[in-house]
């Protein structure tokens, strides 16, 4: 099994992607809602990623 070195951003993006796909698939009743919810969850992850990232950056200055 090859070893992989991802930085924080890449790992968090992959985490957000896989998690939002599964959350989208299992939650809603039709494909349109599933797609919308998956995109919504992914956007929430990205907003949280940048928001908390900035908070930590400013907190450490």
């Amino acid at each position: 099994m090859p070893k992989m070195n991802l930085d924080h951003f890449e790992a968090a993006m992959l985490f957000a992607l896989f998690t939002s796909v599964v959350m989208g698939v299992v939650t809603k009743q039709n494909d349109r809602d599933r797609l919308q919810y998956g995109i919504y969850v992914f956007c929430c992850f990205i907003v949280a990623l940048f928001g908390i990232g900035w908070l930590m950056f400013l907190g450490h200055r």
Partner: protein
Amino acid sequence: MAKPKDTEAEKEARLPPPPIGVWAPPLLLGWLVPGGGHLLLRRTGRGLLLLVSITLMFLFGLMMRGAFFQPQTGDLLTTLINTGGFVGDLCSGLLYMLSVAFGYNQPDMAGAVHDYGSKFLVTAGLLNVLAMVDAYEIAAGRKN
């Protein structure tokens, strides 16, 4: 005075549980193979999406050299994290069993990448639990 209407959740709670023969096979297959329950229930597209997403997440966890949790007891937090993490790892089904069978035994090491790897491995198992619950609901006729 008029009786308030039942909510959907209350109606569902009163439904009789489906027979075990209906929901057990998709649940078991869904545990062993991520998305397997959906594939068994002929939800091919959703099953494949679950299979690819959860399997890739698990494989990325392995490639980042994440550690599997071992069940430990001690104070509440130690028990919760290690035993809970172990259960989370176990929920990946065959992916976990094959990794252990083929000798994957990464010790818990300091470092962000290893740490992310461990979280990827546990999360793959937890996402598989969500997929299993969804397969159960489809088998029980509560979802399409």
